[in-house]
């Protein structure tokens, strides 16, 4: 099997397994309230990390580039309570415009 197909299969099988851990492994059971409370904060923590990495990370470096304009437009759009598609479009437009400038 070529390197490409080995990677496709390994990443596919691995991701299927990672996604299945909760719904297949833990399914149907309620966790202790304390644990559920903690898990409620997994979302904000991971989403904030994704915001940081999508805005500033380029491999292992933190850079300031046109994506910052996209993120700023996103913050403004959210503050204006625009629907999510408008937030996405605002982010793309701002990033593209700054890059063109």
């Amino acid at each position, binding site marked *: 099997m070529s390197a490409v197909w080995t990677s496709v299969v390994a990443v596919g099988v691995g991701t299927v397994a990672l996604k299945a851990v909760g719904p297949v492994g833990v399914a149907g059971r309620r966790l202790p309230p304390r644990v559920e409370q903690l898990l409620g904060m997994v979302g904000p923590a991971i989403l904030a990390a994704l915001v940081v990495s*999508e805005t500033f990370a380029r491999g292992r470096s933190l850079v300031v580039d046109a994506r910052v304009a996209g993120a700023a437009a996103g913050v403004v759009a959210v503050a204006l309570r625009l629907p999510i598609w408008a937030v996405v479009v605002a982010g793309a437009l701002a*990033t*593209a415009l700054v890059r063109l400038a």
Partner: protein
Amino acid sequence: MRRGVRVAAPLLPAVFALGASFGVLARTAHVGAVAAIAMSATTFAGSSQVAAVSVLGAGGGVAAAVVAALLLNARYVPMGITIAHSFRGRMLGRLAESQLVVDESWALSGGGTPAFERPVLLGIGGALWFAWVGGTAAGAVAGSAIGDPSAFGLDGAFAALFIALLAAQLRARRAVAAAACGGAIAALLTPYVPPGIPIVAATAAVLVGWRRA
């Protein structure tokens, strides 16, 4: 489930476009069209696919590509556990349904909150899957004719999308604290560890909430 499809509808053009940019990127990294489409259909997790393909394209080797991709997807373990109580029935059904969990479907269906609705997640995830795989096919076949996807600002659109998803989850003070710590952990670790690890490590931010609870 229909409500999920409706919720996902505004995102479909963006996801299709992102899928197309992955398809184009895959071709420039010498990943064939069929392999790129197969990856989108089975892995269905954009950032990890981009990571794997770019490592392969840079000559990083299979092990590096697979590890980078799976580190990026390790977040699906805690995310899946937050919604696990809603999944019942046969194991194969749950296995299939769990594959429709992606960042957007999880967050927009109330993942990690008491308002989580599994049918909405399945509707969103299913609609996004078709857009993602279809976009990949279009991009992989059209190849270099599309040009550089970053010219469209699609990478900045990702940041804006995650900001919107995050804002929807910042209702309690503890959530704000966890987000602040998660973002700080990611920023601090980025220069020192391989891509993907900072996002997994940000999960440690929930411990802030433990002390404050």
